[in-house]
């Protein structure tokens, strides 16, 4: 997706915060942050990591450097394989205008050697938020792959995909009660971006969002129905 178009779509939806979470990579986050400059939109640098259990976890940070430092740790735990453009498509790195900068030749569409617990802990230690992605999906999700939330894992929140109903998820899985939910698009295309999560926060920072997830100091998070 082209950075200026992501910003434009976010404004159409009146979004205040979005996160860029490419699969096992953060090489495009800076471009979108730059594209959002001068707009009333905060772009959180992040990543969607695929753990060794093939569970997708969102990693969100405040600053690009944090995301890139985390990316180094992730790249070191990916198998040293090259992407096959014919099978998975080319992996572009672009600038703020969406102009081609380079190819990312690393095979990203695979798992890191870290477990779910190791990713959650590492992201927390780095001052980020780890959110289990699209837990209602039948594949690449915490609940599908591991059956239930591993006890003691430090997730900041759990993400639902657009179609899911937060009420139904909670009714079917009483163990999810202690976790905050967000709902987002897992958007691979502009029309998949959505506006279902309402954060009540003072400013769009990781610390404030963490407070909203914990329901502290008047900060809140609420998921609207699609």
């Amino acid at each position, binding site marked *: 997706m082209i950075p200026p178009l992501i910003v434009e779509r976010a404004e159409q939806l009146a979004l205040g915060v979005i996160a860029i979470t490419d699969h096992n990579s953060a090489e495009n986050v800076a471009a979108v942050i730059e594209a959002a400059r001068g707009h009333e939109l905060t772009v959180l640098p992040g990543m969607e990591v695929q753990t060794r*259990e093939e569970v997708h976890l969102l990693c969100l940070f405040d600053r690009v450097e944090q995301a890139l430092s985390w990316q180094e740790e992730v790249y070191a735990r990916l198998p040293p394989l090259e992407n096959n453009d014919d099978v998975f498509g080319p992996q572009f790195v672009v600038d703020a205008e969406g102009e081609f900068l380079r190819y990312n030749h690393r095979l990203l569409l695979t798992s890191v050697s870290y477990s779910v617990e190791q990713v959650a802990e590492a992201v927390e230690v780095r001052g980020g938020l780890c959110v289990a992605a699209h837990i209602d999906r039948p594949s690449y999700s915490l609940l*599908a792959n*591991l*059956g*239930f939330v591993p006890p003691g894992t430090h997730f900041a929140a759990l993400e639902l995909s657009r179609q899911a109903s937060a009420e139904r998820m909670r009714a079917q899985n009483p163990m999810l009660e202690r976790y905050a939910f967000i709902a987002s698009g897992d958007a691979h295309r502009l029309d998949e971006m959505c506006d279902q999560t309402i954060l009540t926060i003072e400013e769009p920072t990781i610390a404030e969002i963490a407070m909203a997830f914990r329901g502290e100091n008047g900060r809140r998070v609420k998921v609207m129905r699609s």
Partner: protein
Amino acid sequence: MTLREIAKRLELTLRTSEQKLDAEVSGGYASDLLSCVMAKARKGNVWVTLQSHLNIVAVAELLQLAAIIVTEGMAVDEPTLQKANEVGIPILTTPATTFTVVGRLTQMGIAGADEPGGSWDKMTGQ
């Protein structure tokens, strides 16, 4: 057929203590998605998977499975083995793939949970 015989014939490595090896195995199930295992595997089944996450023990305990066979030489962490010993779920490992292990189990007469007369019929009539 007992777990002990299966372990011997498939040359599996027993990673947990010597308990419950003489229990009769009721059938087999193979999947790496624990949500599917929870829905489909049955009591006394041997479960073949390459997942080695701690959650496999809880799933096996919940369903009272006979054992977990972890394939492809996947490393099983100490906390997983410790928990398995605590709750009495044998974990066996092998460098062989899931395909190979299941094929050999079938040759030995271990039926899939969903086969006619398999564990599904006995347990739930499904």
